[in-house]
């Protein structure tokens, strides 16, 4: 059966069996292999994507359920090769080793960034607790997200001030 939705700003029509998971359709039919599968029951967070701006597990979502929705994968966060602040912060803080869990963390963190709320380190840890990483021990990931949030807040403040000045 065909299903139409939007992925990373692009309208797509996909033909897939009714019982296929969104994660598999993104990976196999749309070649968005940044969506990783590491548990397939919603615990590890490696398959996290944004659905209408909210983080969801693509392994717990059927492809058919994406109909009419906007999906953003990690590939959609750096559309023209311009890294998202979260992605840059992950590099700067050595927040990844094997990189397999990284897309899930980056997508979750980009959601946090979009919320434009100040977060303590503890709140960041709580927000990331649905993403498992076996390599880093999390500390550098928390550093990266904290830094990205701080930078985006600073940028937001600057922007607000610029508008105010005008």
């Amino acid at each position, binding site marked *: 059966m065909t299903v139409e939705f939007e992925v990373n700003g692009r309208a797509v029509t996909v033909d897939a*069996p009714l*019982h*296929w998971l969104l994660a*598999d359709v993104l*990976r*196999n039919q749309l070649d*968005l*292999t*940044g*969506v*990783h*599968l*590491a*548990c*397939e*029951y919603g*615990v*590890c967070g*490696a398959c996290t994507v944004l659905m209408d701006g909210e983080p969801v597990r693509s392994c717990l979502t059927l492809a058919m359920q994406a109909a009419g929705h906007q999906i953003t*994968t*990690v*590939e959609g*966060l*750096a559309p023209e090769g311009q*890294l998202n602040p979260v*992605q840059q912060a*992950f*590099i*700067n803080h*050595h927040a*990844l*080793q*094997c*990189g*397999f*869990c*990284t*897309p899930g963390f*980056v997508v979750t963190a980009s959601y946090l960034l979009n919320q434009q709320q100040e977060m303590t*380190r503890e709140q960041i*840890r*709580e927000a*990331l*607790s649905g*993403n*498992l*990483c*076996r*390599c*880093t*021990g*999390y*500390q*550098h*990931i*928390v550093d990266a997200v904290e830094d990205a949030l701080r930078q985006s807040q600073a940028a937001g403040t600057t922007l607000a001030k610029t508008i105010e000045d005008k």
Partner: protein
Amino acid sequence: MGYIGQRMTRVEDERLVTGKGRYVSDITPPGTLHLAIVRSLHAHAKITGLDFAAAKNLAGVVGVYGPQDLEPIMRRLPQGMPDPRLRAQMPTPLAIDRVHYVGEPVAVVVAENRYIAEDAAQLVEVGYEPLLPVIDPVASEHASPIHQGSDSNLAAEVRYTVGSGSAALSAADQVVEVTLRLGRVVGHPMEPRGIVAIFDPDTEGLLVYAGTQGVHGFRHSLAAMLQMPDNRIRVVAPDTGGGFGLKTRIYAEDVLVTYLAVQLKRPIKWAGDRREEFMSTNQERDQVHYAKIGVNSNGQIVAVVDHFFQDQGAYTPSGIIVPDTTAICIMGPYRVPHFEAVGKVVYTNKVSVGPYRGAGRPQGTFVMERLLDHAADALGMDRVEIRRRNLLTPDQLPYQNGISARGDSMTLPYGEYQKTMDQVVATINYDTFRDPVQRGDWKFGVGVANYLEMSGGFGFEGAKMRLLADGRIEIATGSSSQGQGHRTAIAQVAADRLNLPFEAFVVVEGDTDAIERGIGTFGSRTMMMTGNATAQAASGFRKRLLEYAAQLFEAAPEDLHWDRGHITVTGVPAHSLSLAGLARHASGQNVTLEFASYFEAAGPAFGMGTHGVVVAVNVKTWAIEIRDYRICHDGGVLVNPLLAEGQTIGGTVQGIGTALYESLIIDPDSGQPLNATFLDYLLPAADEMPDFEVTEVEYPDPTNPEGFKGVAEGGVMPPMAAICAAVENALRPWRVKIDTLPVTPTDLFYQVSRGGIQ
């Protein structure tokens, strides 16, 4: 500015943070068929029949195969790390007649996609006649043998004696005895195992993508199983989502996939899932120790004696490396005049044990550090003080501890062991927390543990440098990264040794076509082995380029000088060539400018360090929280302190997992794993982990020219002992003893109820 020692960010990362990483499961060549495995539902059973009729009839199924159908590969997988002490048992790719653990491959399905393959696997009917499983490792020695034709479940006995061994205990003022248990830990790289095989009937070549830690060994084992010459197989390890020792050798699935790819002449892929990771990938820890320490009244160690059981599971994929390493790592950084370790390695009906981060190092450390804590308590001595009295001092180093492992006697190089401990004791506020501190319902306790990190030190590894047409230099090596950041770190070494910018290097790893020979990445060996090979290759490569340029300029090599990628005839600035220019000339003259060098280790490197932890235990809920964690770690000359810190913290968190969360529970009657999902088997998560304060000290290793040491396994060694010590310390009024891992709220609840509130 030198590159070695800089906290450089990684060249690997931009691809990985944008989703452009290419892991095995991301590789699906056109026409790929997908494989699913039918796995044993029983821990121990006779197979009475296989019925594939229903499965074969399913649309989209290409084939269903049992052992009879795959007879040419139904030989035993090659024994890893063979050892004369071992009575080995290796599996065939599919179980023949009998299964020996829940999850053992019984049959295999090939289908158009993984969904259909799993549908078909569900339709395969397997007849079982259940047999009594052997689950308890201590009882196993005298239980009925699980392997046919074998007269005992004792796979091996590892034995080390120093001085007069256990006889020396009688000379001690005090002997303390303790039973220590470590849970069965599943390593869980985030990327499950997987493999893609592509056979080209024209060239009869087999291209294999596998997330392996050593492509050359992997190829050699595959070649033996497939009865193909090595040179017809190319193995590529693309981006690999973690390894931790679990991906060092071939598994049954690797043989099944490659063989069927050749037979069916279609690309075949098996992307294992998490359930399979729980049921088929090597597991670790799972030991019971009966340990004794004899001390004098002044706290000095007289003797350490440890008799232990290694629950080996069903087979011996990596020989007895884990129990052997356990035994030789017990003494750690201490002076132990008399020592005895006897480890019995026993078969049980469980998944096989193979190296997982530390591979025995954490177990040995756990034994020694727990013994010291218990001895201190028995003597009424401070736990740090007893360590201070037994740590090797600089004037005693280098020190031969009397263990003769893998041919050589272990020699501990110079280091200042007390300094790392002093640093941690000071920063963790040991003196404040040593006496129980209580805030509300939370009781605080502190624990300190030392370790000696043995790394690298066996075999060889190579680096092959080649001048590329664009003037950059390719460095090919047989090691392979599962996240360590080799492409960055190796380039840092090369850049310094060739006095070129970092960007001038391209590191190629994990490809049997890139370099003739290699061993791979495990045992924290890559920086020591490949790092030194790179430095060695750099000097040969520079010489090679200078000689070639000398020919071009018709000058003597000694009249040329090398300055940041330009070769110039001294005093004749016009006679100068960039590396790109040199490459152009060489290409025109059909010359390849390359140089390979293989570094051979003289022995392992030894780093040292200390962990200190403050925990808080809630006396109402028995919650255990880590409130402060300090690490002082010697990693030798650090190529990239940022990456070293990442390794240290990552390893420490895996150690905390073993200490507080992780244990695969096997039903003692049926042998069924009871918590084989991430819902029930708890990995450490972001919310519970603390921030770590890591201090690196650098004592260069004397056995290799660059002074490098491995840094990947130090972190995982001491957390178990340090956390147990801290929890005991927090609950000191109840005299709680924590000798079973993982430590759980339920355990504390029972210990306190038994001890009564004082």
